C-alpha cells in the first residue's frame, strides 16, 4: 500500500461524511413525515377506502399504497385482511406492490439528490407499471388455474 492511500481514503471518508450530514435535514424530514403518517392514519382508515369495484379499487389500492409507509410485512397482513373482506385480488396486489415500490414522502429527497425530472419520470412509470404488473399477475394466475 502506498503511503498516499490512507490519506486519500481519509479524505474520501470526510467527504462522504460531510455529504451525508448535508442531507440529514432531508432524511429527518422524511422520517418525520413517516412518523406523522403512522400516528395519524390507521390501517382501518386505509382499508375503508376500498369500494368493492375491482377496477376502481385497483386504482385506489395503487394510490393508497403509494401514500402508505411502513414495513412490507404490514402490507401483506393488511392485504390478507382486505382479501377476506372481499376486496379483489387485483386491488390487493396493486396495494401491496405500490406499498413497496412507491413512496410519496421520500419524493423531496429523491428529487434533491437525483433531480426533479428523473424523479417525476421514475415515479410516474412506477405508478403505471404497478397497475400493469398487478393486473398482469392476477390475469396470469387466473389463466393458469
Amino acid at each position: 500500500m502506498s503511503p498516499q492511500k490512507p490519506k486519500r481514503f481519509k479524505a474520501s471518508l470526510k467527504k462522504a461524511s460531510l455529504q451525508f450530514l448535508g442531507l440529514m435535514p432531508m432524511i429527518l424530514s422524511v422520517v418525520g413525515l413517516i412518523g406523522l403518517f403512522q400516528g395519524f392514519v390507521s390501517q382501518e382508515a386505509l382499508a375503508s377506502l376500498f369500494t368493492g369495484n375491482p377496477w376502481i379499487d385497483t386504482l385506489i389500492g395503487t394510490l393508497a399504497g403509494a401514500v402508505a409507509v411502513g414495513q412490507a410485512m404490514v402490507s401483506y397482513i393488511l392485504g390478507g385482511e382486505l382479501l377476506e373482506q372481499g376486496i379483489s385480488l387485483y386491488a390487493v396486489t396493486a396495494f401491496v406492490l405500490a406499498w413497496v415500490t412507491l413512496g410519496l414522502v421520500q419524493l423531496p429527497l429523491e428529487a434533491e439528490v437525483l433531480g426533479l425530472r428523473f424523479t417525476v419520470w421514475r415515479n410516474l412509470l412506477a405508478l403505471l407499471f404497478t397497475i400493469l404488473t398487478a393486473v398482469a399477475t392476477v390475469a396470469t394466475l387466473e389463466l393458469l388455474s
Partner: protein
Amino acid sequence: MSIRFRGLKLLGFVTSAYLLGAWIEPDKTAHAFMAGAKIFGELLLIFPLIILITALIDYRFDAKTFARHLGEESGAKGWALALGAGVLSHGPMYAWYPMFEEIRAHGVRYGLMAAFFYARSIKIPMLPIMIDYFGAPFTAILTLYILLAAWAQGWIIERFCGQCDGEFKGKS
C-alpha cells in the same frame, strides 16, 4: 470542505406540522413522534455503513471503472447487476440516497438506477411470508413480472428521459 445543508425548508415545515399536531391532537402527535424516533434509531445503525460505502466508492472506483460496469458501455451486464443489487438490497430507500448521489456522479446510467429502485420491491426475506398469505404461484408470477417491469422502466427512461442528466446537480 464545508457542509451544505439541504432540505432545511422541508424540515421547518415538518417541525411546524408536529407543533401544530401537538396543539390539536397531542396523543396522536406523541405517537407519531415516537414512531419517527424509533425509525430514526433503527437508521442510526446503517448510517455508518452508508458513509463507509460512499467513501469507498469515491476512493476505490474511478469514473472509467463505473462506466465499464454500470455506465453507457455496460450493456446486459449492467442490467443484471442493477436488478440483482435491487433484489439483494434492503433497508429504507431514502437512507441510501446519499450513496446514489455518489454513484450517479461516477456516471451510472439513469435507467439502471430506475431498474434498481423497482427491483427493490422483491424482498427475499419476505417471500415466505408472501407465499403464506398469497400462495406460491402468485408470489412466483409477481416476482417475475416485477423484474420485467423494473427492466422496462429503466429501458423507457433511457430512451425518453434524455434530459435527466441536465437536471443532475451532482456533488461538489
